């Protein structure tokens, strides 16, 4: 588990991180959400030691993070970059060795990853000869080649086409399933929604909310129900304890005051005729996000 405790950082007079604390748990994909400039990248850079913290600690498995520990982390920076004139396979292998693998293992891992990422045919090409999407996949391979103990990915899906997103996702899921904690940032809420087990939401340099995705939904999202009947659903307006969010002929979305109300409404609907649908509407991350920041 990665534990970030009370990390602060300023640039000049501007405080960009204010006592940021959160955990990244083993075997879970943790989504790091925040608007542009909210401090996501700064936090990640501090975890990786690329930037120094002005306060607070970063611990990995209850040990302070130092150079040797970091060498076993995998990092995909927001600003992508590899050596443009170096061959793909050679480059990934070299980075593997830089992370401490021996040559044989680095080569084997590279071959396996390029295969998984559909890049096996491009290993002997120079990086600059690849399309941007494919360069991005190489970047993923570079972050994974040394079988990292922890993965930190800054906007791993930006610039990827939908098929590539699925490919990369598959690779990341496999790592998470193997027990590796994965922290990834994104501003594409739909993608995060699909992917993450845990959420950390940062706003203006401090943590606005964190926890398991489903817990956060329950906590911050108002639970709504969608009701579809045969006739007009306008009678719902007169029901006590019900707030109407949307009403359109036979379809209505409402917010009950409590669980009692929700069951009473269902019975009332059945009394009036057939009920075609009665479904809880799960709040989207978008809604949670807007609520907490």
């Amino acid at each position, binding site marked *: 588990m990665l534990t970030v405790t009370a990390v602060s950082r300023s640039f000049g007079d501007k405080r960009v991180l204010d006592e940021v604390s959160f955990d990244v748990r083993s075997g879970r994909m943790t989504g790091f959400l925040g608007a542009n400039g909210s401090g996501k990248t700064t936090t990640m850079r501090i975890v990786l030691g*690329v930037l120094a913290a002005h306060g607070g600690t970063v611990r990995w498995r209850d040990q302070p993070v130092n150079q040797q520990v970091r060498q076993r982390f995998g990092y995909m920076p927001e600003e992508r*970059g590899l050596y443009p004139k170096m061959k793909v396979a050679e480059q990934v292998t070299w980075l593997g*060795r830089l992370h401490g693998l021996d040559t044989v293992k680095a080569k084997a891992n590279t071959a396996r990853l390029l295969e998984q990422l559909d890049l096996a045919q491009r290993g002997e090409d120079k990086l600059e000869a690849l399309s941007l999407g494919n360069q991005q996949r190489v970047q993923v391979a570079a972050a994974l080649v040394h079988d990292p103990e922890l993965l930190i990915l800054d906007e791993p899906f930006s610039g990827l086409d939908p098929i590539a997103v699925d490919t990369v996702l598959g690779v990341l899921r496999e790592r998470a399933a193997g027990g590796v904690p994965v922290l990834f940032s994104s501003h594409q809420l739909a993608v995060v929604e699909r992917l993450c087990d845990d959420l950390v939401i940062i706003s203006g340099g401090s943590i606005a909310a964190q926890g398991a995705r489903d817990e956060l939904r329950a906590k911050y999202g108002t639970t709504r129900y969608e009701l579809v009947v045969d006739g007009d659903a306008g009678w719902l307006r007169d029901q006590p304890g019900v707030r109407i969010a949307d009403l359109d002929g036979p379809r209505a979305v409402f917010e009950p005051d409590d669980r009692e109300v929700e069951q009473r409404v269902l019975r009332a609907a059945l009394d009036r005729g057939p009920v075609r649908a009665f479904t809880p509407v799960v709040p989207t991350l978008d809604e949670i996000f807007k609520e907490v920041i």
Partner: protein
Amino acid sequence: MAGSFGSATRLVAEREIQTFLRSKGFWIGLGVLIAGMFAATILPSVFGGDPDKVAAVGPRAVEVLAGADLDVREVADLTAAEDLVRTEEVEAAVVPDTTGDSVTGVRVVALKDVPNDVVAQLNTAPPVDLLDQAAVSQDVQRLVVMVFSLMFLLFGLGGTAIAQSTVTEKQTRIVEILVATVPVRALLAGKIIGHALLTLGQVVVLAIAAPIALRLGDQQALLSLIAPALGWFVPFLCVGFVLLAAMWAVAGSLVSRQEDLGSTMGVVMLLVMGPYFAVSFLFDNEPVLAVLSYVPFTSAIAMPVRMFAGDAQAWEALVSLGLLAATVVAVVLLASRLFEGSLLRTGGKVALSKAWASVD
């Protein structure tokens, strides 16, 4: 820690060398250098020059010189001939032998150097008297200065590759992955060591090619003259290169784009060109050369030249080399702090003061 630092340094050096050995520019540069060396040694003997001017005194001298490809000028007596030699109007004078130990009955008088071109034209080599004999001839010394300062210039400028590779890493942003993985100092050390090895490799190639070129140009004599000087030049060149390499790396780390490199390379360029010009122009001014032979940067050329000319003792060379090495240590320490402070800053050019202050 030492192990991982060492292996990171080795990997960085390995990549620098590999990248370089694969670039066309490297091989073209080395090819041009070798071709230039062959051209410089072979071409003069092919094309030759105007016939050398010689003064002749007495009928015997004229007789000996008959048939030789020389521009002969008859003069009245020995004094007149020596005057012409001293004013360098003629390369040498052929005068009657009064001692009796010359088979041909003539002697050759020259200023500082044995006039090989002239003597070679005569059927039997007469004895040669030099009017102003120095320990090492001026011509050879000039040649040594030229060769050494040119090598210093070439390899010093070769250090731009370090600046370029650093900027490439900043520009492509791979630097962020590198810094997250290995200590920044290992990056710097790897670059310096990698390029120092490349330089040494090129020196070795040139050292192997030089005797071949000189033999082809029929100038073996020169080789035996230069060879002892090389013994001092190689360590000075290598240590001097590390000094420049550290500075090139900082020059590269201060900017974020190749296009901006010119603005930071100027100072380092000056430190490479300065010694080249200083020693090339001032090498016959002994006190100045003595000073230059202790000043780091210029000492890399000046001290080997003085050693070669026999003007300095071995301990002087060791002191100078020690000074140079101490400067290297100081500069590398300074450079690694600046390198660390500026490597992750992107945008415009990083001011040195900011690079220095940002380490916390």
